């Protein structure tokens, strides 16, 4: 039953004109492709890939957070959930459907932006190189990152207002990016308890730095297959845990 909810969530996003952000991305890529050759010599590819991947990540992040925090809250607030939950669907299936629907939206959005990036890259390079494959891997990592952010936003959406959920999700995103720095902070203090806490935080926080391969892709460095598997497993595991916590929270919640 989750897929029925997922398709409807995707349809909602499309009808809410969420994909209009693609126009801004296209304009950004066109402007970059035209002007980058004039201001940089020999590093056009690096600039375009850096800019394009950063924009894909940022646009996706904004979508994941701002749509994600309303996924469940909006349905509870408007009481559209009342009719839905009287149908033969479990609350956990509803959550899974909402998650999958937003992820599908993000995937379509990211795929279309990647096509825009490829067009801009082709415009400045006049050809694709083998090293450009790493861009696709970097895009895949961005999608994994977005899956994590979506799961976090969905979790907060189950028990908090959108404004607070945005604050919680963005805070965790920032903390997740800084996770390796938090871990290295422990040994510097020389305190065992603090070191234990920072290590614990490192493992508990979503480690977003794992997924940042924009610079590597821009420089055409290859990304090892093992890392792709590791990151995939990490994201899948983390998302599964968050969704389980969200399902447990939401399944016991009294709707107003």
């Amino acid at each position, binding site marked *: *039953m989750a897929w*029925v909810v997922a398709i*409807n969530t995707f*349809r*909602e996003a499309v*009808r*809410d004109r969420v994909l209009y952000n693609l126009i801004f991305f296209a304009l950004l890529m066109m402007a970059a492709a035209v002007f980058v050759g004039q201001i940089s010599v020999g590093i056009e590819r690096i600039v375009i890939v850096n800019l394009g991947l950063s924009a894909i990540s940022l646009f996706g992040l904004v979508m994941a957070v701002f749509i994600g925090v309303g996924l469940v809250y909006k349905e509870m607030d*408007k*009481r*559209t*959930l*009342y*009719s*839905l*939950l*009287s*149908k*033969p*669907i*479990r609350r956990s299936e509803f959550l899974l459907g909402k998650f999958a629907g937003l992820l599908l939206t993000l995937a379509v959005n990211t795929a279309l932006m990647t096509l825009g990036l490829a067009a801009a890259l082709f415009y400045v390079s006049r050809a694709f190189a083998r090293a450009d494959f790493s861009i696709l891997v970097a895009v895949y990592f961005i999608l994994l990152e977005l899956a994590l952010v979506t799961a976090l936003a969905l979790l907060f959406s189950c028990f908090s207002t959108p404004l607070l959920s945005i604050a919680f999700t963005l805070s965790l995103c920032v903390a997740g990016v800084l996770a390796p720095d938090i871990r290295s902070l422990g040994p510097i203090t020389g305190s065992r308890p603090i070191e234990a806490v920072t290590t614990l935080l490192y493992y508990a926080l979503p480690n977003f730095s794992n997924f940042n391969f924009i610079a590597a892709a821009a420089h055409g460095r290859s990304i090892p297959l093992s890392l792709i598997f590791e990151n995939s497993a990490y994201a899948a595991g983390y998302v599964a845990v968050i969704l389980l916590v969200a399902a447990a929270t939401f399944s*016991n919640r*009294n*709707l107003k």
Partner: protein
Amino acid sequence: MAIPAIEFEGLTKDYFVGFWRKRPRRALDALTFQVDQGEIFGFLGPNGAGKTTTLKLLMGLTFPTAGAARILGCPLDDVRMHRDIGYLPEQPYFYDYLTARELLDYFARFFGFGAAERRERVSRFLEMVGLGAAAGLPLRKFSKGMLQRIGIAQAILHDPQVVFLDEPMSGLDPVGRREVRDIILNLKQQGRTVFFSTHILSDAEMLCDRVAVLLNGKLEGVGSPEQIVAIEGQGSEILAELPAGRDLPSLLAAHATRTGSRYRLEVAEPDLYDALDALRACGARILSVTQLKPTLEDYFFKLVGRQKPAPFAVETVER
């Protein structure tokens, strides 16, 4: 023996109010009764009595503090049972980016209907609730009455055994109310159970096999509308005509309604014959004596303490 459609066993719900020191407020107090299959059952009570809370508990939208309920013999947390039930929430609201047809198609998918069957059902039920012409209209453009109609359609789209309707007549014009009444009667003819909450008592009186009356979360009575109102006879209405130049005794006249030479009096049952004697004594011609049948509304008013004025008592007149 057939399984009851709905069984309540001490169903209780407390809400916690207050910011710092949360205090429990009892919304529903040990509700115990059952609804048989094939009945149209009215769930009556003033605003805040606990009707919507009960329906939300039955739908698994909130969870009971104590007690239990079963629908078609299944516990409330059994989602498979939802294949056999339909629910219209109070003041329903649906995805406004969908059209009426898309909404019903979306809900129909949860019951595993194929594409052809979904198309047929959606068209049939849209026609049934009078929305055939608005099938392609986005729900954001729907009026309150139209939302109520699409809400009823989604509740019965899959031919459920038990249909729960929370204030189904709300927001509907007289034509719409008549159509919904027909739909409810039609469901009964098909052998389905309809459990609906309402505060429009004439609808309950007209439709229901049995009703339950809820007040401040407590069950005040369960039975047929006739049983519920048959607490005591309320009295009789006398229509009398006086010859020209004659007047009613002043105390009688003070409680009578006059239209030309005709008078209408309401008297309590034990005082009927005394009132008739008094009227004859002053030369009145008795046109009719009709027993006043108490309505569900009278019972309801009495229950909530806003009783209608008591019938006129003759002994006060004779003094």
